[in-house]
């Protein structure tokens, strides 16, 4: 691991701005790290030529005395759910075999326009459906962390598992992720990094392969809260091409990191104390409350009474939308086509071969809950639950400014664990899903270690479009936690 890959995004930016290092040097170090980290299988596609070209362009700009802003010259990894012009985009699925979009997603376009450098496309659960990165057609991703005294490979979480592993292993200064029910926050927690899901509507969904349209939201995975603030500023913004994107100015998120949370009211939702939660996670949660109150915040117990219905409602709404969103992968226009004698047989053969088991399971669930005769019992009821959950949050935010919860009910688990029980897998999202259903922003901050030596995250949730308060509180939590542990696997270092 070179010193350049150890740097945080903010540090690397300062080095570039101070002329201490060139974008090319910074990028070359990261390109080498991406190569060195291949055992993790964090990338589906590496784009070193594109990276170096973008880095050279950044250096040329800087030589002319120009810069495109905070992200100019910073190497990033892109989740393979974002369409990138001329670069293979797979969504982790066989059904998009060979698909090179003739267009660039708005979020990645925003990043390139801010001068960022693309290292490659990261591995992910197929169509972002999963919490382990085990459902990718391109194979599992290994978490760079190991349990103490146990060399079994662990999952990085999911669905943004490749992005989380790449950032944790020091292959990239930051990575884009998408979060539908926890797909940024849970892998961030499993990998000992920061992951933020902004408010629904804050980042454009245009050009992001859709999973569940009413829930999908792009966000950053970084090693520091400050880096998340910098990167979100480069991703966010209104987009007329996405009718659900919100037209409001993008604030200077980094400026929100004042470190001052005196008087901030931090809600602690009692319903998040679920049965069977490991004591160390409960303990870390209490520790987090103490850290924030020590910094001048006030902890308030609040109630989110419909929390227990969130997971079942999510596993109706998200598959329902997915069953429709994935109908376009039919072998007619792009991606995989398995020829057959009739149109219907071609559909069956293509989708049968192109989709993995988890995607098929969710398409079937989604189709079922939308069918005549079941619609009211499932889909409509789930929508009503969703409004109740949003109301719970709205009522809580009348009393408090942010909420503090654990990010996930466990640390990273081993590859192969929980694989035979989809419900146990779905439980990973128990703390992240409610805010997704309500469209609210959340951030996971590495806050401590499990007894087995694995990172644990705490989650802060905020009001809609109040990412600034959320980042400020997260910065204080990060500072207090002082998380400095390094994973066993670091790109370019013997492990």
């Amino acid at each position: 691991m070179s010193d350049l890959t150890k740097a945080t995004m903010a540090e690397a930016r300062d080095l570039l701005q101070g002329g201490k290092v060139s974008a090319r040097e910074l990028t070359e170090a990261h390109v080498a790290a991406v190569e060195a980290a291949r055992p993790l299988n964090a990338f589906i596609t590496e784009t070193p030529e594109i990276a170096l070209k973008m880095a050279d362009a950044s250096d040329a700009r800087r030589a002319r005395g120009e810069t495109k802003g905070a992200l100019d010259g910073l190497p990033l990894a892109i989740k393979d759910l974002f369409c990138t012009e001329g670069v293979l985009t797979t969504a982790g699925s066989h059904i998009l075999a060979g698909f090179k979009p003739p267009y660039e997603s708005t979020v990645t376009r925003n990043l390139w326009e801010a001068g960022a450098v693309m290292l490659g496309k990261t591995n992910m659960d197929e169509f972002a459906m999963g919490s382990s990165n085990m459902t990718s057609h391109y194979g599992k991703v290994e978490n760079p962390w190991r349990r103490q005294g146990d060399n079994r490979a662990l999952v990085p979480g999911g669905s943004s598992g490749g992005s989380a592993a790449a950032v944790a292993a020091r292959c990239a200064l930051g990575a884009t992720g998408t979060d539908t029910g926890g797909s940024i926050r849970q892998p961030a927690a499993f990998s000992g990094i920061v992951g933020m899901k902004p408010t629904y509507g804050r980042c454009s969904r245009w050009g992001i392969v859709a999973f569940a349209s009413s829930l999908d939201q792009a966000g950053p995975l970084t090693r520091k809260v400050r880096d998340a603030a910098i990167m979100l500023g480069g991703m966010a913004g209104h987009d007329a091409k996405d009718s659900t994107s919100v037209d409001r100015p993008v604030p200077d998120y980094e400026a929100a990191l004042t470190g001052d949370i005196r008087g901030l009211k931090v809600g602690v939702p009692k319903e998040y104390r679920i049965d069977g939660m490991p004591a160390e996670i409960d303990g870390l949660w209490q520790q987090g409350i103490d850290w924030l109150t020590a910094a001048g915040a006030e902890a308030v117990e609040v109630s989110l009474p419909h929390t227990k219905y969130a997971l079942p409602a999510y596993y109706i709404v998200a598959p329902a939308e997915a069953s429709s969103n994935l109908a376009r992968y039919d072998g007619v226009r792009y991606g995989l086509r398995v020829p057959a004698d009739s149109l219907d047989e071609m559909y069956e053969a293509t989708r049968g071969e192109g989709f993995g088991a988890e995607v098929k399971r969710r398409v079937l669930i989604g189709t079922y809950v939308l069918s005549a005769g079941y619609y009211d019992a499932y889909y409509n009821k789930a929508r009503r639950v969703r409004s109740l959950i949003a109301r719970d949050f709205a009522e809580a935010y009348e009393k408090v400014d942010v909420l503090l919860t654990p990010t996930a009910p466990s640390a990273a688990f081993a590859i192969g664990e929980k694989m035979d029980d989809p419900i146990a897998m779905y439980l990973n999202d128990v703390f992240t899903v409610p805010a997704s259903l309500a469209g609210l922003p959340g951030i996971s901050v590495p806050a401590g270690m499990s007894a087995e030596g694995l990172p644990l995250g705490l989650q802060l949730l905020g009001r809609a479009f109040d990412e600034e308060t959320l980042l400020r509180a997260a910065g204080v939590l990060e500072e207090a936690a002082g998380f400095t542990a390094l994973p066993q696997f670091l790109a370019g270092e013997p492990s």
Partner: protein
Amino acid sequence: MTVIEGESGPWELVIGLEVHAQVISETKLFSGAATAFGAAPNSQVSLVDAAMPGMLPVLNEVAVEQAVKTGLGLNAEINLTLVFERKNYFYADLPQGYQISQYLHPIVGAGKVTLDLEDGTTREVGIERLHLEQDAAKLLHDQHPTQSYVDLNRAGVILMEIVSKPDMRSAEEAGAYLRKLRSILRYLGSCDGNMDQGSMRADVNLSIRRPGDPLGTRTETKNVNSIRFVQQAIEAEARRQIELLEEGGTVVQETRLFDPNRGETRSMRSKEEAHDYRYFPDPDLLPLKLDPAWVAEIEAGLPELPDAKKARFMSDHGLSAYDAGVLVAELETANFYEAVVAGKRDPKQAANWMTGSFFGALNRSSLPLAEAPVQAAALGELIDLVSDGTISGRTARDVFEAMWESGKSAAAIVEEKGLKQISDSGALEAVVDAIIAANPEQVAQLQGGNQKVIGWFVGQVMKETKGQANPGMVNKILKEKIG
């Protein structure tokens, strides 16, 4: 009420129509791609239309405005909250795997259309709803021996689905409904109504029953693309259902297709094979709230529609219901007629010319109105020549035909052919005197009380003057001299 006499007694037809009308708009419902008819295959396709991964629909506001305008034109309720929903099914002409349509919250609710029937009477047909939806792509089956090609130009084009209540009772009424609907859409400029280009297509819902009985089981005959075919499909399907029931069978609820070559409908899919469309609100599009002030603004800007125009032609112009109905059926005909009247000529004269010689010549020539060799101003001038006595009505018809042939003005033809009416009383008296002198026998008959002979004298004068004598004056002079 029209009833059909079957072998076992009378049957009544119950007909409802679902009309798909393509909205006039430069771009599609949710994409910026163009919509011109007849473009090269796949030349008017955006990434959204091709359902590329990650593409999102953005509503074209023109569609909403056109639908609101149409709803107002159909005397219908405008729903201020509209929701787009996905109708899910797989087919090669549907790139997204779903059609974005409206289901629970259509933009337009109940309304009504007044039909003008052949006998001059009117009849109301209720409108159930109007909603916006995307058109599908076109499949080309004749380009390759074993494969079908897909042309996405039409995919995503804006359609209004206009659903009538089951208020029609005969093929004639269905035809009158379609003609009236097309007329209203054309007046509004929301659909060009060109059925031969597929801009308007109809699904026919039809059931039969004994008069007074509850509704029978209906069939839906899909995608009939001309008014004539709709009427033929109704007759064929009604015949089929009557035969079926009279033979003791039952009508099965199903979707059928009309084969115009064989003049019959045939089964496409039964109720059991019907799709479960799994409608749900499209999460890519937020519910839209319309501002009542905006709707009021559209309403204030509506043009005069056929019914209002017809009423005005009857009350202000004194036209018959039939003539007024004929003249308002197409906006350009009504405009032509009003240009002939031009606020100064006798409307009845103008209407008679339009519905008589003019339409006759137009039909014979198969020209569109705009290309008629005799335009409104020229026809007006011809009428003026009759009114001021320059030519007789009889001569005027010949002049009209000459105008149609040559494109020359009425005045020029009258001049050229020397058709000017003789209204000089001295000259006419001389002719009359000569004829009286030459025909004492007929003079005696007339004086003996046989008034019919006066016609014979007029004829003689006309013959002598090559038809140019002013008939009114001839009559007057004759009466003075021998009456």
